[in-house]
């Protein structure tokens, strides 16, 4: 599946619904704001892509030299570079790059099998999403749970316990947590596999249409594959999710504490509503709003954490792809991947902003 199509589907659909809602029901100032945001996103992505393009070209070294190494005479290398279009004037290459983005082509990888980059990204992006999504859900669950408990038991032992947890888990390097989990659950106890998305043999029985292994195995009824995929997801998801949960615990706790000091909470208490109900039914809902929007900002942390998690667990995702291709100077792949990242991040923050504006009646434009 083409990676851009994928991004649009996943983020665009809910955001699109929200957009439609705003346009129909929202104020004109809100509409103006949304349109301005969308209009700003495009040049931002373009500027970033251009920057990446030129910076890569400044880098010494090129994919041909990198791949052949000491083999092949300079003439051979020059010829191969020409064949790949790397000797063309830089503006022509830039034009080609822009054209690729607009037609969603992304060009062909300059190394290895020279596969179309959109094919490669189409395989890698779902892998990263399959890692990030469950991890975020886990992080949110733990974060909201612990954060609320901590806020409700302010200044007591369990509050400090949860705060300690959030700080300790955040202080652990994510790749270290991954290594420890690998060691403990993978090697010593043998409860979960430590690398890859799916068992090698089982993986060959699976028809990959969307490259989301979970979806593909459900669609084709391949329950062995589903089991293997879920089994492989356990440790990486746990790693990323736990580390992220630290952030959410802190955020939730602070927001709930602030909310609990609002007047309407005092009023509710005064009216005799039980503390339990007050915390969870009144305060939590309002406290969640900033927490959920902060998910948008945490995308940055998520993607960064994903790179490290993918490296530890040999997870074939976009982060690892980027690191590999930077070293082999696969210009096309790198500039396309970073552009994809930028689009991804921009769309998520736009989507989150839209949702925030819908949820929080206080937001005015």
């Amino acid at each position, binding site marked *: 599946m083409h990676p851009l199509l994928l991004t649009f589907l996943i983020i665009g659909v809910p955001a699109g619904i929200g957009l439609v809602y705003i346009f129909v029901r929202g104020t004109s100032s809100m509409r103006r704001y949304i349109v301005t945001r969308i209009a*700003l996103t495009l040049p*931002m992505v373009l500027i*970033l892509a251009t920057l*990446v393009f030129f*910076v890569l070209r*400044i*880098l010494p070294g090129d994919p041909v030299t990198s791949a052949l190494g000491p083999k092949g005479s300079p003439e051979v290398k020059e010829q191969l570079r020409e064949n790949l279009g790397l000797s063309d004037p830089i503006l022509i290459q830039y034009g080609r790059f822009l054209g690729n983005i607009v037609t969603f082509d992304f060009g062909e990888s300059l190394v290895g099998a020279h596969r179309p980059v959109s094919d490669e990204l189409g395989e890698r992006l779902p892998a990263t999403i399959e890692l990030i999504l469950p991890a975020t859900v886990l992080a949110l669950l733990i974060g909201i749970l612990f954060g609320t408990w901590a806020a409700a038991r*302010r*200044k007591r032992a369990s509050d*400090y316990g949860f*705060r300690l947890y959030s*700080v*300790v888990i*955040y*202080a*652990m*390097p*994510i*790749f*270290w947590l991954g*290594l*420890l989990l*690998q*060691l403990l659950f993978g*090697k010593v106890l043998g409860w979960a596999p430590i690398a890859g998305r799916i068992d090698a043999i089982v993986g060959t029985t699976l028809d990959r249409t969307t490259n989301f292994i979970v979806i593909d195995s459900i669609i084709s009824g391949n329950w062995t594959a589903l089991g293997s995929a879920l089994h492989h997801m356990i440790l990486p998801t746990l790693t990323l999710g736990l580390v992220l949960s630290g952030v959410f615990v802190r955020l939730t706790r*602070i927001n709930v*504490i*602030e909310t609990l*000091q609002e007047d309407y909470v005092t009023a509710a208490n005064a009216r005799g509503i039980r503390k339990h109900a007050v915390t969870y039914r009144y305060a939590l809902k309002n406290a969640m709003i900033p927490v959920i929007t902060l998910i948008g*900002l945490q*995308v*940055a*942390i*998520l*993607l*960064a*954490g994903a*790179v*490290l998690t993918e*490296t*530890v667990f040999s997870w074939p995702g976009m*982060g690892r792809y*980027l*690191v590999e291709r*930077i*070293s082999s100077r696969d210009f096309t792949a790198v500039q396309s991947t*970073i552009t994809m*990242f*930028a689009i991804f*991040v*921009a769309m998520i*923050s736009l989507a989150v902003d839209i949702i925030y504006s819908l949820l929080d009646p206080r937001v005015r434009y």
Partner: protein
Amino acid sequence: MALDTKVPMGEPEAMRWASELEDVGFVRRILMARKWYHADWWFVTISAVMVVGFIVLALVPQVFASFSPQEQVGPRYLAPGESPDVEALIAPVDSGFSTVGDLAVGERISVAVVMGEPSSEAVRDESDRVNAAFKEQGIDAQVSLRIERYETLDAALTGILDGDVAVAISSSKAFEELAENYPTLNDVGPVAPGVNTRSFPLGTNQLGQDVLSRLIWGTRIALIIGFSSSLVSLFIGVPLGLFAGFTGGKIDRALTVLMDSLYAFPGLILAIAITAVLGPSIFNVIVAIAVLYIPTYFRIVRGQTLSVKESLYVEAARSLGAKARVILSRYVYPNVIPSVAIIFSVNVADAILTGAGLSFLGLGLPPTTPDWGIDLARGQETIQTAWWLITFPGVAVMLVVLAFTMMGEGLMEIFNPKLRER
């Protein structure tokens, strides 16, 4: 602690209490603060002690580390607390060899070792020592060895019987297990008599370097990266934030858009790209990480500047004709400092984490630097056989990051009025 203003205090009592407070020294005040801030006080104090401890380690690692981080102190992959086996010379019963010195037969002599054992190094170190001793004493003989490597001890011992090699070196223990199969061969004694073997509290790594010493020396690199990049971010981000917040207008908007897009972009990816462009060196790592945190300082400082700018007393000052410089230094600055201090503390922690992540990926630092991230990356290869190589550097990173984060956390609790009990 809320003074109940509704119940009037006797005048002399109140004054006495206030003056007592002023007389109290700094240390006393810190201890008294404990009563006000409770556990947060503990948070800050413990972490401050840890931070100071780490800074001391970073400043003078040689005082605490028994060895230099690059020095080979023992065999490879020694477990924590494990004593290395004694390497012994295995020779035919009638050969007459009893020490390595006896191997100086006037020509190259073939010696069998088992792949992966420290036997080869042991015998070569000893022959160097013996040769140096011969030279000193003016003896003409020299030991000249040809090392033949075998995959198993059995193959090596068979090699002696076949005549391919003259002697074998192996650990006494390993030979004991096979001794009965080779009645004509004898363990004639340790290869290096008189040399004490020791164990190491955290074991050794793939080059035989002491893990504990490397940990201590790694503190220096980690703190250099953490502090330098944070300071650079601070000195760029804070002035920019003040400027933008104070000036407002188009410049402010342009800067904000720039900083926001930088802030939203995944930091590690950016750092990866920057270090890939600049190449492996500690300076480039500092630059790459510094760039990531400029927006954080910028946003917070700008926000604070904006809110201070709108406040009544600043309006009053301005209407009285106070110059911008005065407003900045008298009103904005003091309000900004506490936030900056908190950010700095958390920033150092984050920078150390990002730096470790970069080294783990193999980017940024030259791989011969004694750095925790690099040690963790190498440790991953032997995660099954040498668990200590990934455990301890990770603990080190965690403790340092914890110290700085806790300090920032605690400071935030103390400074943030909204979080105080009413």
